[in-house]
């Protein structure tokens, strides 16, 4: 199939995005409305007089029928208005612009570390299948995958922060650096670089490394396990015998022929892992007091701040969709067998 035709099918897939998004909005909206918590009480408090409660209810439009409420919400959404958060009193859009970059920064560094370590480990384990190297890597991965992440996070804080003092404590940066660099992208490391402030940059990286490391270990375990499984499958292929019979070096047989056949599948694994990290690693963000989307979503939910919950959920859904689309595109463009 020609590249052009493949791109055509890709466009068709992209067209399904709005439909999926509409479904996402509908379901999230409904769940938000049928939950047995009263958003009005969350605003006025449970000791407010009855007429204040009623008036707030009217102001929020909660007296209207559910379908009308939904249409109003979608109408505003299309204009980019996600409503106002009760908890922060900012617009939800502004909140997300503030909180999501923190998660984006954390997730991106975590997935980079996880992939750069996990993929070579997985390949090594597959090539050395059944040897001590393989066993050690597998135990390492099993630990990363089966230890609850909050245990890992707390252990990490205990060892690297409290005992050894190598890492700075929780949070995104040291308080003395608060608001030192102008927020351009809200990615603290990038903002520090843009401002040319090396001290802030060093501090931001130091704060980033520990939570990112914990998340990376967790994701690395999964990536390495999948890489190993894919590679075992690929290495037993007849084309690997052909490659060896051609007199190619072991490195070329492994990386060009065996790994070349799994790279597309691996991209899907990486994309989905990344998506999982981007939806906000709630537990990790809580333990490290990381002001990211996961923390925002959890706190909003516990405070019945429905606009914030809906907005954040939409961002998570969009991220998932985008990365799925990306994995799909990778399949179509890189694997000659996909029609």
């Amino acid at each position, binding site marked *: 199939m020609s590249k052009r035709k493949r791109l055509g099918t890709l466009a068709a897939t992209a067209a399904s995005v709005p439909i999926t998004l509409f479904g996402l909005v509908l379901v999230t909206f409904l769940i938000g409305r049928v939950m047995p918590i009263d958003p009005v009480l969350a605003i006025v408090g449970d000791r407010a007089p009855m007429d204040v409660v009623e008036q707030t209810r009217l102001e929020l439009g909660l007296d209207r029928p559910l379908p009308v409420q939904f249409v109003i919400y979608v109408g505003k959404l299309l204009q980019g208005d996600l409503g106002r958060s009760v908890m922060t009193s900012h617009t939800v859009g502004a909140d997300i612009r503030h909180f999501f970059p923190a998660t984006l920064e954390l997730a991106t560094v975590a997935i980079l570390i996880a992939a750069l370590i996990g993929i070579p480990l997985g390949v090594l384990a597959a090539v050395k299948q059944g040897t001590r190297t393989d066993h050690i890597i597998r135990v390492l991965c099993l630990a990363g995958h089966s230890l609850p992440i909050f245990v890992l996070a707390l252990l990490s804080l205990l060892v690297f922060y409290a005992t050894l003092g190598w890492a700075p404590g929780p949070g995104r940066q040291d308080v003395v650096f608060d608001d030192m660099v102008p927020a351009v992208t809200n990615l603290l490391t990038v903002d520090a670089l843009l401002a040319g402030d090396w001290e802030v940059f060093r501090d931001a990286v130091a704060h980033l490394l520990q939570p990112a490391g914990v998340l990376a270990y967790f994701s690395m375990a999964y990536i390495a396990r999948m890489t190993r499984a894919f590679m075992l499958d690929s290495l037993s*292929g*007849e*084309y690997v*015998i*052909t*490659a*060896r*019979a*051609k*007199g*190619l*070096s*072991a490195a070329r047989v492994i990386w060009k*022929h065996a790994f*070349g*056949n799994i790279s*597309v599948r691996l991209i899907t694994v990486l994309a989905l892992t990344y998506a999982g990290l981007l939806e906000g690693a709630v537990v990790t963000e809580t333990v490290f007091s990381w002001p990211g989307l996961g923390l925002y979503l959890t706190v909003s939910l516990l405070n019945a701040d429905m606009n914030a919950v809906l907005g954040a959920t939409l961002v998570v859904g969009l991220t998932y969709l985008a990365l799925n689309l990306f994995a799909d595109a990778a399949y179509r463009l*890189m*694997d*000659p*067998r996909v029609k």
Partner: protein
Amino acid sequence: MLVEIENLTVSFPTPQGMSHAVRGVSLTLGAEKMGIVGESGSGKSLTARSILRLLPENARIAADKLTFDGIDVLRAREGAMRAIRGKRAGLILQDPKYSLNPVMTAGEQIAEAWRTHRKGSRREALSAAVDLLAQVQIRDPRRVAEAYPHELSGGMGQRVMIAMMLAPDPEMLIADEPTSALDATVQAEILRLLEDLVSRRGMALILISHDLPLVSHFCDRVLVMYAGRIVEELRAGDLTHAQHAYTRGLLDCLPTLSHPKPRLPVMVRDPAWLS
């Protein structure tokens, strides 16, 4: 002699102890066409692949002598083996659907074989690949060079495989059931092509098959293997003079058009053949 094998054994560890797949095979090969026939599991593929040391990782291999052109295959370093594989001896596998790399074009795969053993640019390698495809009688070599394996028919795929193994101009070719996965008419074409190329280049050939008449028609000499041993060696054309009961049994099981039998005999296996 190009290949000399004395008392070769190949075994695999199993929970029940060692399982012996090849049990004391000896043979020599010059610039000739030799056929190895036998049923599945008789050890014919393992014997041939031992020459290139391309056995499964868990295989244990031992021999009094196993040499390729005087090089001790059992003791050679991996680098020395790589100089033999592809460059001096090629291996053609059964089904191109699995033996060609699905994510590389036919041209890339042939060019890779060419470039591994002859120094040259990527461009030269690709044009050599197109040349080689023409030599294996592919009508539109340029188009086929750009095709991926799944876009080729079985016969075309096997021609690509042959072109790939001929790229470095080896002295020996091992064809491991090269036509078993192909249609009957294509089988004949591929065999004729192999015969033509092997004779023209004066290469040695080991043809592995389970088709006795086909092999004896095509080769100078035929070895019959059973349960890891060579039970009989025949000059081609001497098939009718086969002595061993297993070979005779195999021949009896073949229906012929000239002497049709109402019922084909069932082979009775004598446990004595195993010893």
